[in-house]
């Protein structure tokens, strides 16, 4: 059983977390200007990296959404940053 670090709760069981996709996958803005290709890339295409990856995760128990740097081969976690209150520098903060 792997522990993931929730920025709010600390290390918790992996089964409490939900994968939310690539960090930095921003919704294309401008209704008329968004091409089919941009929309497809946003909705469906994924980086799906083998090795270090920067991803969005949610701790379902407390509802915290955060970005996590994780190696997809050996599952080591480098860091987890809260997205609330402007945390993180990947453009996902609100």
């Amino acid at each position, binding site marked *: *059983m*792997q522990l993931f670090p929730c920025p709010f709760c600390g290390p918790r069981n*992996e*089964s409490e*977390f*939900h*994968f939310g996709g690539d960090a930095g996958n921003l919704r294309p803005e401008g209704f008329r200007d968004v091409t*089919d*290709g941009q*929309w*497809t*890339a946003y*909705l*469906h*295409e*994924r*980086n*799906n*990296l*083998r*090795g270090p990856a920067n*991803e969005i995760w949610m701790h379902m128990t407390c509802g915290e959404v955060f970005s996590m740097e994780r190696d*997809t*081969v*050996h*599952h080591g976690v480098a860091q987890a940053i809260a997205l609330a209150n402007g945390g993180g520098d990947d453009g996902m903060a609100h």
Partner: protein
Amino acid sequence: MTRRYSAVSLFKEGLNAQKGWQKAWRSPEPKPRYDILIIGGGGHGLATAYYLAKNHNIRNIAVIERGWLGGGNTGRNTTVVRSNYFFPESTALYEMALRLYETLGRDLNYNIMLSQRGIITLAHSEAEMEMAARTVNAMQINGTDAELFDVDDVRGVLPLINLSPEARYPVFGGVWQGRAGTARHDAVAWGYARAADRLGVDIIQSCEVGEFLVEGGRCRGVKTSRGEIRADRVAMVVAGNSSHLAAKAGFRLPITSYALQACVSEPIKPALDTVVLSPATGTYASQSDKGELVIGGGLDRVPSYGQRGNLPVLEHVVSGLLEMFPSFRQLRLMRQWAGIVDVTPDSSPILGESPLPGLFMNCGWGTGGFKAIPAGGTLLAHLLATGKHHDVSRPFDLDRFARGRLIDEAAGSGIAH
């Protein structure tokens, strides 16, 4: 000339202490150029090479495999074959595969140990029974075999299952497909390899593709650990590595990779002579010819290239099995393993030319591509030879994601298979 396998050859070798068998395929040096190059020596890659040679008479072909033949997911799956999907496009694809499987042993002169023992997909509530009836109707309309089973029918095929109304997941009935079953997975890879080799295909193992040769905006070949190899058309058939190679070719795919696990019990006397799948408990199982229970379930929840799987899902799968079959509690687990599977948003495969012209794809089979190997090979061979889609592969082109015509089999096909 490859020796044909027959009852007589088996008998003779029995008398000869099995000393007269030859290698089933050659290990040639890679040539500098081929008409068609296939990356990935799993079932789909090898089948593609075989059908290119057999159906289209294209012989100057190579299959490049970084490890050994069938060492990927083809050698790691739970061997279930079936065509009980929901949408017409899917039934056409998986039914084509099942029909080819039915005569594949003779076609390849190789015993793939196809056993059409039937599959029962269980329903555990009245609501699930209604969905089961809908699935059966869809399957029958789409032209494959299906029956709606009630509890007594289930008892007939699963004498050991707990049918008590007090069970945690009481059984109400299920969807039966009688032509479904299992086949020996290694034999499928080896049978295609031997037959393709006999038709002149070069099968090159221990050779990894690292980069693509791109000239004038087209794919012209690949750089491998054993040098450059050029080809007019290249196909990537690399389950578990599709996004990684796509990135080298300069595009992204609608794919997320996950570990999918399986395990086997110690061998026991015949106790389960069909395939049983329960979406509610997240478990499916069959018994191998050796007597082991072969047990599988859903995907791991964490995207991963770590080819071992993690504990929560394994626990879930095994507890689901024991819930349904209390008498299996005394069995010991012998082995557990995982493969990396490429999952698309609609749980359907991708077949077609890639965004890099000259590079074709067969990928995204997720948890269920073993059953599809004969069709995947036939259809990719058609694409490579003619440059055009077969009617059956057209709906599975990558462009469906831009056109919004997804073939969402996530629910229709049950859980991992």
